């Protein structure tokens, strides 16, 4: 049985882009590719939670980061992911000019659109990995 691909969004609480990263992870794992992906909490991963690390170690994973500091990607790398595929919300918004995401707990419609766009980018990564059989 194939292991699900770990998806780790940044936990950014200060800006809308962090909230969009979190929402994108839910769109991907609940709506777009629920059979192939699962959310792993960044805080658990970085604090060394064994179960969280087991779900990541040695496999390819997807980081969805809100800012250039790329905390989720760094967290995945330090937890032993064999390869970290990055989805950067701060790049994604450049490809969708005109969107003005606002809110943290409750994203506005533009924030939700941005999250969906990022989730579709991540879904493409999942499909590519699936074709290559890399997350087995």
């Amino acid at each position, binding site marked *: 049985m194939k292991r699900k691909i770990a998806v*780790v*969004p*940044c*936990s*950014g*609480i*200060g800006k809308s882009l*962090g909230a969009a990263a*979190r*929402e994108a*992870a*839910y769109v991907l794992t*609940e709506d777009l590719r629920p059979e192939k992906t699962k*959310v*792993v*909490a*960044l*805080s*658990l991963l*970085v*604090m060394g*939670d064994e179960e969280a690390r087991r779900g990541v170690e040695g496999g390819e994973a997807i980081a969805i980061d809100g800012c250039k*500091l790329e*905390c*989720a990607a*760094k*967290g995945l790398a330090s937890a032993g992911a064999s390869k970290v595929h990055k989805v950067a919300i701060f790049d994604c918004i450049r490809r969708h000019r005109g969107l003005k995401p606002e809110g*943290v*707990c409750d994203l506005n419609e533009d924030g939700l659109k941005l999250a969906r766009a990022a989730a579709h980018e991540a879904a493409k990564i999942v499909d590519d990995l699936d074709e290559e059989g890399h997350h087995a």
Partner: protein
Amino acid sequence: MPDLPKKKVGLIACSGEEMPEGTVTRRAVRKVLETLRPDDTVTLCLPLFLAGGEGERAFAKCYPTIAVDGCDKRCAARATEKYSAKPVASIVVTDIAKERGCGAIGTARRLNERGLRLADAVAEKIVQETDRQLKKKPGECAGKAPGGKC
């Protein structure tokens, strides 16, 4: 007199993405920051804190912090203590939910009405701890006191 920086309390939410209680921590912390105590609090970003954010770590060394965790693994509290200093208070959402007799609170993506009320209760608890740190008099806090049912 020198112009000393105002004393503020740093709030660190675990934000646990896997569980609804993590979402409660975010909502509660944002409510305190935006509405209940905007002049007295700042939020510290836990992943940035863990990833070596110097500003975050320095703040937590010099100012009081309140860790708000979704579960008893207490990632926010442990991380703060490990990288800076012990938080002055550690709030755990599952403890408050138990005290209040909460049932299901929705999903990590979308809290239900009970989840939203639980977040309000956690926010009030954060306010109490913040005021205690800043030695504010009781009664300045808006909204209901915690302790009711979800």
